């Protein structure tokens, strides 16, 4: 059987409280083990930095809207082209890479797991077709429930068991990992070109409020004891002054109790939801009150949604915000309503450092990460490719590690940014351990996949390991940030399931990753009532037959199924 040992590794493994210890890591049959035989393949890390393989809990890597981005943007597909090699398929694209580049790009950076953050059930088959084609990395998908007719009808009729049964069925149908809520109720309102204005603005024709949708889905989520908490994109995203809605939304879940060792609410890409001011003219950062809230409450986690200057392709199930973006920026606009379920939109845009609005957005992401005291509460993301493409993670990591690096960036940014944010006065610099938390450990913990071998290097974990060409003992990341960024951008080694997939930044093997999904039992009577409603909706309102709706096993060739149950 295949054995490997990584010697002289400077290991940061926060889940196992390992903070820069020099040690050996043994691998057998794709898993971390205590020790291996003398004939094991040996890699001498020579004191270099070793992390568990990176995990991305929120990214847009597959499915309808990503492909809409590719088709709309041949200008993007012209970027980052690399011809095929003996090992790899051809690569295209920067903000919307082709499936091959998507997997290679993550692997190059030492990332081995990524979760697609928005899967409409009706289009889940498409998502899985792309996920299967993304090489190397393991993946999963979060299923959209926030504007779904089945969900809203069950909530209006105050039938939590029926709601829980539908969530279980929806996860099964989409082969999904968790409950995603985007602009709760807003997707339905967008069906007639409207939006909801906040937590207590009822969804037209359905007479439920966004507050009820969030609350009830959070309760259903815990009833089903799902590995991940609800994963929420708040109302009013992209509007000045939205931080108040964000804070109020946190409170909705304050007393939700999780039986698992994780948050009971994850709020995503909060950079886009921590905005002050009443309009673009007095637009300002409200990262401080958000960070204050996090510092006082441990029931929730967030991710940054960091902005990266340059080209982005924004894509979200928040249909109305995309129309607003496209009109504001006179940009191309694709919309993708999904019958009975949700909306979506895709718009390309460019973030300019000379725009103080973009400058403030840039600062907010960093403020959120630096002002929140517990590093486990704020995940590093760019909401790829909304804030910017994931290949910029190494740069964002250096921004968190070095004030000097931030100052270098600030020199390019519109002056007004610093009157309306606190970024210039923040001295905090994260260390190697913090970065390991923010780029792998807490992502795995928040998703609920630590016990399934992700985000750490404990015995029994998947042998997903990144070795970076940098020696923490000899490197001052606060000054040598260019060296650090280069090391994080192209790993010396990426090992996936015990196999070397990247060596010296080059892809050396392209195994197929697995797909996580959750199978949950549901309360029998709730299930019965749910099926009755569901059959009626298929008969009268869906344009496909119920028998053809669910994702078939053929589309998830390497499933990793976690079973859970209603309690």
């Amino acid at each position: 059987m295949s054995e490997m040992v990584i010697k002289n590794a400077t290991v940061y493994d926060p889940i196992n409280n390992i903070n820069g210890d020099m040690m050996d890591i043994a691998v057998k049959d794709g898993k971390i083990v205590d020790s291996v035989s003398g004939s094991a393949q040996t890699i001498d890390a020579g004191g270099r930095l070793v992390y568990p393989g990176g995990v991305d809990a929120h990214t847009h890597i597959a499915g309808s809207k990503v492909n809409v981005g590719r088709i709309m943007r041949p200008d993007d597909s012209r970027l980052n082209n690399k011809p095929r090699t003996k090992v790899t398929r051809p690569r295209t694209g920067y903000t919307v890479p082709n499936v091959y580049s998507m997997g290679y790009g993550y692997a190059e950076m030492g990332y081995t797991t990524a979760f697609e953050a928005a899967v409409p059930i009706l289009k889940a088959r498409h998502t899985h077709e792309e996920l299967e084609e993304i090489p190397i990395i393991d993946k999963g998908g979060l299923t959209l429930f926030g504007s779904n007719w089945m969900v809203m009808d069950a909530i209006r009729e105050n039938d939590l068991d029926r709601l829980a049964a539908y969530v279980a069925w929806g996860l099964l149908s989409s082969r999904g990992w968790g409950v995603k809520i985007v602009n709760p109720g807003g997707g339905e309102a967008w069906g007639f070109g409207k939006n909801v204005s906040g937590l207590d603005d009822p969804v037209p024709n359905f007479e439920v409020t966004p507050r009820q949708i969030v609350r009830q889905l959070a309760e259903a989520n815990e009833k089903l004891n799902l590995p991940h908490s609800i994963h929420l994109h708040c109302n009013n995203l992209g509007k000045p002054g939205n931080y108040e809605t964000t804070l109020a939304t946190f409170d909705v879940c304050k007393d939700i109790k999780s039986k698992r060792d994780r948050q009971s609410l994850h709020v995503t890409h909060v950079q886009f939801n921590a905005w002050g001011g009443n309009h673009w003219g007095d637009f300002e950062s409200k990262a401080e009150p958000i960070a204050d809230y996090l510092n006082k409450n441990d029931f929730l986690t967030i991710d940054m949604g960091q902005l990266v200057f340059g080209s982005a392709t924004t894509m979200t199930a928040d249909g109305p915000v995309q129309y607003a973006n496209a009109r504001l920026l006179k940009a191309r606009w694709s919309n993708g309503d999904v019958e009975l379920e949700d909306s979506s939109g895709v718009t390309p845009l460019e973030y300019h450092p000379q725009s103080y609005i973009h400058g403030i957005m840039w600062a907010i992401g960093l403020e959120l990460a630096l002002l929140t005291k517990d590093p486990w509460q704020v995940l590093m993301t760019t909401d790829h490719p909304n804030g910017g493409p994931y290949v910029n993670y190494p740069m964002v990591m250096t921004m968190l590690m070095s004030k000097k690096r931030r100052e270098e960036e600030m020199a390019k940014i519109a002056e007004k940014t610093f009157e309306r944010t606190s970024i210039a006065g923040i001295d905090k610099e994260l260390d190697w351990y913090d970065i390991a938390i923010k780029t792998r450990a807490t992502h795995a913990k928040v998703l609920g996949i630590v016990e399934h071998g992700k985000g750490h290097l404990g015995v029994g974990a998947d042998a997903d390991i990144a070795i970076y060409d940098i020696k923490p003992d000899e490197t001052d990341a606060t000054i040598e940030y260019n060296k650090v960024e280069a090391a994080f951008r192209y790993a010396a080694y990426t090992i996936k399931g015990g196999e070397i997939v990247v060596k010296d930044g080059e892809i050396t093997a392209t195994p197929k990753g697995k797909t996580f999904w959750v199978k949950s039992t549901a309360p029998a009577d709730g299930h019965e009532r749910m099926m009755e409603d569901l059959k009626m909706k298929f008969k009268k309102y869906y344009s496909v037959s119920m028998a053809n709706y669910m994702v078939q096993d053929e589309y998830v060739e390497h499933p990793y199924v976690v079973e859970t149950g209603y309690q």
Partner: protein
Amino acid sequence: MIIKDVLCPFCGCLCDDLAVEVEDNKVVDVKHACKIGASKIMGHDRIKAPMMRDDKNGEFREVSYDEAINESAKILANSKRPLLYGWASGLCEMMAKGILLNEEVGGIIDNTASVCHGPSVLGVHEKGLPTGTLGQFANRADLVVFWGCNPVQAHPRHMSRYSVFNKGFFASKGRRSRKVVVFDVRKTDTAEMADEYVQVNPGEDYIVMSALRAIIADKADVVPDSVGGVPKEKLVELAEAMKSAKFGIVYFGMGLTQSRGKYKNIDNAVSLITELNAHGKHSIIPMRGHYNVGGFGQVCAWTTGYAGAVDMSRGIPYYNPGETCSNDLLMREEIDAAFVIAGDAGAHFPAQSIARMSKVPVIQVDPFHNPTTEMANIVIPTKVSGVELEGTAYRMDCVSLRMRKLVDVDFPSDEEVLDKIIAKVQEIKGASS
């Protein structure tokens, strides 16, 4: 035995509610389908065995699959500029193999959209596409516009299943809940069923849309008395109907994409729809022809970054419509071998392209004889997808569904043939490098 919820391998409606009766491994009856779909599923004379000929005017001789596949691989491996065309009447699984084959031979892969909705893709490059799934339109639309398309003939169940006669959640009275407007150069059967028929002068759709946009933007004063054959007062009336609709949907077809203006018509139509969203909700969607022509665009985009017309001669995907589409290359006489699968170049390409194809080796992979067969040197028959083979197809609204297998046959699938060709090409290229 009755097989229910069967998907139809005919048009982009991809109806999935058919009931097919199978006896002794033969389809004996098809229910709920339109006549064309039923006839496709019932089957007709097919190519019985692989065939080859050296002289395109000569007679075919029957050969083994191995011989036909090896000879095809040889032609493709030795070609400098092979064209891999068709891909619309097959499953996504085989399209993915086509993309791989194109990488191996460094050729150009293009699909039937090239002579169909290709210009729509160019319009999307310019302006995007505000759209949705067919059920969204079925449940909500109170204003239905057919522009340059004729579903009564081309998509026979479209109007009853998705767009006009069916009831929806917010369209509880079905036909009576909707105002139906047809823009066309001639009074089609679809126009006969509309509330409004707007006759547009051939090639003048673009200016009609521009006039509507001006009126909607409160600039009616710049619009002349008649535009594209439509009186101004009619245009004002139509603009009002659009502005006051709660949910408007425009279905468009070849009448826009293949008439004067081509992709510019789509660009303008998308602009019209985008602007109308300031008033109500509005969407637009192309009426795709083949049941899985949409699937090729999807597979090609996720593998190469582009929806079609991908030139792999540089080792990276290169896309430049006007340069890398099938007919650009054929008319420039660059193509030195053609591989035609699940599409019919012979029936749909212009004469100049056909002239080139008649001079170069042509390989056809298809269950059925069609005009491409007349130009072919090698013909390889395969399974009928969605009848004899299960797999993935994309409806016109890009919803992917799994097609069912109804009967068993001994023919190989497209995918199996492609796998063997790829292996052989690799062998030949490996030996020569």
